[in-house]
C-alpha cells in the first residue's frame, strides 16, 4: 500500500521525524484557507502516488492567497500519468542549505533492510545510482540486532554529510528505521532530506509503502487507504476480496493461482492479444467467487472477450463451471468466453458447461489453444 506524501509525512512525524507544517485540502477554498493558516510563501503539492509530479506541474509555490487559489485550481482535478488529483497538500516553503537523500527498502535478496544515504538529494536516486554509485552510502541492518548508533555514523561519514550534521543524520536514520520496522513498511524514502540554514534536518518529501499483509496490526494505517485514487475496477475487486490488477488491453483473464494467471497473460500476448486484467480467483474458489470475478472483469468497458484458464488443484472445475453458469444468468454477457478447464473434476466441469449451453462460450483443451482462440475472438 502506497501512501500519499502527506500521509507518509504524518507517519514519519509520529516517530519524531521533523516535517514541514502543512494541511491537506480537497477544494480551492480549503486550499486558500490552509495557505492563509500556514502563511506565505507556501507550496501547493498534488497528492498522487507517483514520482516526478514536480516536473509535470504538480508542485507550485504560492506567494499570496490569489496564487494559492490559482495553483490549487490548476492542480486539483489534474491528471498525472493517469491518476486524478483529488487533494493538495499545502505546506510552508522550507529554506534549504543542502539536499540529502535517505531511504530504507526491504531488500529481498539480502533478507534485510537496506539503508541508503546520499548527499545528492532532490534527484532521482536511480539516476544517481547509475551515474555516481559511490555517492550513495548503503548498509544492511540485521533484523534481530536492529539499527545501531554506529550504523548512523558509518553512513553519515561514508556519504560525506557536513560534519556538523553527522549526529543529526544518525538520529534521523535511527528514527527512519524505527518507522520502517514499527509501521512494517516495505519502503520509506525521504527525498530531499533538507538541511536548513539553521542546520536542522527536515523531511521535505516522503514516500512510504506499507506491507498490506501487516495492516491488520496497524488499524490506523489501514484506514489511510485512499480508495478514491484507485481504479474503479480494482476497488470493486478489493471489495470482493479478489486479486485483480487492471491492464491496458481488451481480453479479460481469469485463472487460479498467481503464477498460472501471469503465465496466461504471457501466452495471450505471444498470440498477439492484449490482456485487460490480471485476476487470480485464488485456491479453492467457490462458485460465488467466480460469479463476482466475472462481474469485475466485465465492468471494464474495454473488454471484448474473456479467457478462463483453470487448472484445478484445490479449486474444483465443477465449482468454476457452476460459477460461470450463475454469472451468465445474472449478467448475460455480450462478449465471447473461452473456457479451459483441466485438473480436479475437469471432466465434470466440462460436462456441466456443455449441458448449460451458454451462448458464445467456447471450450478449449489446452492453455495454448485457449489463448489462440480468445485472441481471434477479441478482434
Amino acid at each position, binding site marked *: 500500500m502506497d501512501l500519499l506524501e502527506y500521509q507518509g509525512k504524518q507517519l514519519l512525524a509520529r516517530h519524531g521525524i521533523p516535517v514541514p507544517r502543512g494541511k491537506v485540502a480537497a477544494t480551492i477554498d480549503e486550499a486558500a484557507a490552509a495557505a492563509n493558516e500556514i502563511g506565505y510563501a507556501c507550496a501547493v503539492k498534488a497528492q498522487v502516488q507517483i514520482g516526478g509530479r514536480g516536473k509535470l506541474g504538480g508542485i507550485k509555490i504560492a506567494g499570496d492567497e490569489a496564487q494559492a487559489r490559482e495553483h490549487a485550481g490548476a492542480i486539483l482535478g489534474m491528471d498525472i500519468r493517469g491518476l486524478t488529483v483529488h487533494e493538495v497538500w499545502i505546506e510552508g516553503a522550507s529554506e534549504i542549505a543542502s539536499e540529502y537523500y535517505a531511504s530504507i527498502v526491504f531488500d529481498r535478496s539480502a533478507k534485510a533492510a537496506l539503508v541508503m544515504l546520499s548527499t545528492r538529494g532532490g534527484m532521482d536516486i536511480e539516476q544517481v545510482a547509475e551515474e555516481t554509485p559511490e555517492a550513495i552510502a548503503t548498509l544492511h541492518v540485521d533484523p534481530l540486532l536492529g539499527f545501531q548508533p554506529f550504523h548512523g555514523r558509518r553512513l553519515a561519514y561514508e556519504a560525506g554529510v557536513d560534519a556538523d550534521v553527522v549526529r543529526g543524520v544518525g538520529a534521523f536514520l535511527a528514527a527512519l528505521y524505527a518507522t520502517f520496522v514499527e509501521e512494517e513498511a516495505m519502503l520509506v524514502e525521504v527525498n530531499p532530506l533538507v538541511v536548513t540554514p539553521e542546520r536542522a534536518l527536515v523531511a521535505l518529501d516522503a514516500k512510504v509503502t506499507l506491507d498490506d499483509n501487516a495492516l*491488520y496490526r496497524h488499524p490506523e494505517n489501514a484506514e489511510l487507504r485512499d480508495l478514491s485514487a484507485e481504479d474503479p475496477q480494482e476497488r470493486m475487486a478489493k471489495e470482493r476480496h479478489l486479486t485483480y490488477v487492471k491492464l491496458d488491453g481488451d481480453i479479460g483473464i481469469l485463472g487460479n493461482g498467481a*503464477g*498460472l494467471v*501471469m*503465465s496466461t497473460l504471457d501466452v495471450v500476448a505471444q498470440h498477439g492479444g492484449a490482456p485487460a486484467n490480471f485476476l487470480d480467483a485464488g485456491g479453492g474458489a467457490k462458485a460465488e467467487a467466480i460469479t463476482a470475478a466475472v462481474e469485475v472483469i466485465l465492468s471494464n468497458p474495454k473488454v471484448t472477450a474473456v479467457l478462463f484458464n483453470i487448472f*484445478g*488443484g484445490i479449486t474444483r472445475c465443477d465449482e468454476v463451471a457452476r460459477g460461470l453458469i450463475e454469472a451468465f444468468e445474472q449478467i448475460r454477457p455480450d462478449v465471447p468466453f473461452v473456457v479451459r478447464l483441466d485438473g480436479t473434476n475437469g471432466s465434470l466441469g466440462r460436462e456441466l458447461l456443455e449441458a448449460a449451453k451458454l451462448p458464445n462460450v467456447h471450450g478449449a483443451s489446452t492453455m*495454448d489453444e485457449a489463448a489462440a482462440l480468445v485472441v481471434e475472438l477479441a478482434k
Partner: protein
Amino acid sequence: MSVVVDRDTRLCVSGITGREGSFHALNNRRYGTNVVAGVTPGKGGQDVEGIPVFNTFREAVAESAANTAMIFVPPPFAADSILEATDAGIATIIAITEGIPAHDELRVYTELRRAGGARLIGPNCPGVLSPGKANVGIIPADFFREGNVGVVSRSGTLTYQVGNELAQRGLGNSSIVGIGGDPVPGSSFVDIIALFEADPETELIVMSGEIGGQGEEEAADYIAANVSKPVVAYIAGFTAPPGKTMGHAGAIVSGTHGTAAAKAAALEAHGVRVGRTPTEVADIVASMLG
C-alpha cells in the same frame, strides 16, 4: 530418493483442528504420508481421526517423534508457530499459510539461519510432494507420477500445469517443491537445486520462476558454478507492468529490477534452457530425457 519429504517423514500439523488444516492433514495421510501428530493450543488430548493433538510442539515431538512440521495456522500466528517448531527440534518446516507480514518473515528467516535452525519451505507455498513417498501440503498428487524430474517452483498451479504436461509425456518426478511466492522464502531456488543436484534419483531439474526478487538470477549463477544436471526453466510474468503486485506478494517488478526478461536472460547466459510456455518446458524436458 527424493528431497525434503519421503518415507521417513513424520509429520506434525500446526493448526490441525482448523477446517483447512484437518482437510489437508487427512488428505496427506491418505496419500501415505506418516502424519503422527497435530498441534492446536488448548486442544491437547483431542484427536483428528486418530491423529493425536497436542498443546505445544514440544509435547508433540516428545510423544510422537515428529521430524517435519506443516504450518496451517492463520497469518497472525504463523511466524510464532514456525519458531515454536524449530525450538522444539523439528528439522523441516513447510509453511502453507499465505499472507504472513513481511517483517515477520524476515525475523523468522534470520532466526532460522542461526546455527541449528530448521529448513523452512514457504511460506505461502503449496508444499512438497515426493510422488509415491509422501505429500506434505496442498499439491494435488494425482497429476504427478514417480520419476526423475525434480521440480522447484514459486507458483502452485503453474507447477500442476507443468507436472501434468510431463505426466502426459510419460515423465514423472522425484520431488515437487513449492518454495512459495512471498518476499522472503525460507528456502530459495538455490537451496532446493542444491538438494536435487545431490539427489541420485533426480536426473533433470525444472525450475519455475516468476517476476520479482533476484532468486532466479542467483540460481543462474549457482547452476553455472555448481550444478552438473541439466536444468530447464520457465519464467512467468513477461507482460507484467512495473510496480504492480501480481497476486503473489513477492511478484512485483520494481523499476527495472526483477523483470521476467532479465531472469530468462540470466538463466540462458548460464546455459539453462528457458521454455516460453509450460508446454514448451515439458517438450524440452521430454526431448532431453527421451
